[in-house]
């Protein structure tokens, strides 16, 4: 599966707000921990290895092959 990079969620603003709220009042260290948990949960949900690999490359700022 190719990673979806076009808009794929209905309420982007709402999700973004909840993402920021998740970090409200947390130390930088704790935020990092929470982000990491989030990444792992999402990776497992995506499941598809190719999609995850693409996301990893994009996140690292690499150009698509």
């Amino acid at each position, binding site marked *: 599966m190719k990673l979806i990079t076009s808009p794929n969620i209905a309420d982007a603003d709402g999700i973004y707000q909840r993402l920021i709220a998740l970090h409200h009042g947390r130390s930088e260290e704790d935020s*990092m*921990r929470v982000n*990491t*948990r989030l990444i*792992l*949960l999402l990776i*497992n949900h995506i499941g598809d290895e190719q999609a995850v690999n693409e996301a990893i490359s994009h996140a690292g700022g690499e150009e698509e092959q």
Partner: protein
Amino acid sequence: MGEASPVQWRERVPVWRERQASPLPASAPREKARIVIVGTGPVGLAQAIDLGQRGHDVVVLGRFDFVPLGSKAICFSKRSLDILDRLGVGERAVERGVIWNVGKVFWKDEREPVYQFDMLPVKHQKMPGFINIQQYYLEDMLLERIAELPNIDIRWGHDVTGVELGNADAGVAVASAAGDYHIDAEWLIACDGNKSTVRDLLGLDFEGRVFEDNFLIADVKMKGERPSERWFWFDPPFNPGQSVLLHKQPDDVWRIDFQLGWNIDREACVRPENVDPLIRAMLGPDVDYEPEWYSVYTFQCRRMERFVHGRVLFAGDSAHLVSPFGARGCNGGFADIDNLGWKLDLVLRGEANADLLESYNAEAVTTADENILNSTRSTDFITPKSKVSAIFRDAVLELAREFPFARSFVNSGRLSTAVSYPAGPLNTPDCDDWKGKGVAPGFPALDAPLGEGWLLERVGKGFVLLCNGDPGFTVPGVELLDIADAGNIDLLIERYGLSPGAATLLRPDQYVAARWKSPTEAAVTEALARSKGASGS
């Protein structure tokens, strides 16, 4: 001259069992031999038995005139036990060893494991998932077996000090207390460990990575009611921020590995008065134990680029080195000799071209790479090298308590299992549709009950055509094993998808070479030739 004489080795290496230093061979100062093995470690000894059982005269050279003591390998995999069984010491090892199948992973001070695994998911096989046994006990058993074979000439206190690579042989210079001599070896197998003299003398590479961490290996004797399981802790209160591994050995000996970190005083940390507080913090202030052996290790992952250099063949730690998480060192070495023995046998008999040994290089390098990959990944999980890496590790452990998905990320060592060669050069690709069932070419045979015994007891000498019903032909050099009329074959049929008329061709190392729903003489003949190194095209 060698680094030290046998006498001086005693000052550096502790002795488990004395062997008599061997005299000069009758043919000294110049001798000819077909096979010379360097090294009396487990890998060299196992290689000698394999080739001896196949009928070859073997000279084994060892620089020590003793079996060393110390804390080295304890965990031996099912695949190694299958190999050892073929060499005549599997049952002894299992009887003497501590059998275990289950590993548990703990985090911090929690009493419940965050994760656990079973090393023998497929039951009803002769050998267990793992045994633990002190390396020197295993070496003793291999030596007992060698004593039963008339054609193995093992020379204690004979140190290889020079190697010259010829076109059709290798010249070996040997130093011993009784004098120096020279052997022209048709084949030289270097099982001389990670500091391989042979490798150095030939100026060969050994590239890899050092892990900046130290581990205290404490073998202690104590009576205990703990189960024989592998227990691993991340960040326990008794070794904060580090890992600990606890494992049972025979004779009430327990191995405890404490991760210590990089900047430590290596001399000081093995002193009993410094180990004692660690042990008491872990097992309770009143624990009653006796120290057996304490040592500190730093781990590396390395391998030679090639294991075959003309007439010189490398096997075991001389060829590859892994970190011990996963017990892939000696187990990986046994895989080498298992792969090499039958190939060299065919070459020596003139039944295969020396090119067949190129497939040893290909398959053993594949195995080494898989072992290095796994042990590197484990080491990176166990000892995170950056803050982010540590945060990921802890997030995995945290999530693992609650969510099953996260448990598959928990890596306290992926324990050694047989490596497969699905793209191996000796395989004949399937022409039938097996619907994902059975054991495919390039995979190790899966054991199953057969009559009163086990399938793997019946294969492992030469090529075997395992079939369900007489195929109506024979192929020279292939033994037929028709199970149709044997008892207790249901699991075997299921595991191999062996419907009536079907057949699986097994190599002498118990790997599947080819299989057919209905084999023909021509197909089996061709697959056999391919397995012996005739190029398939």
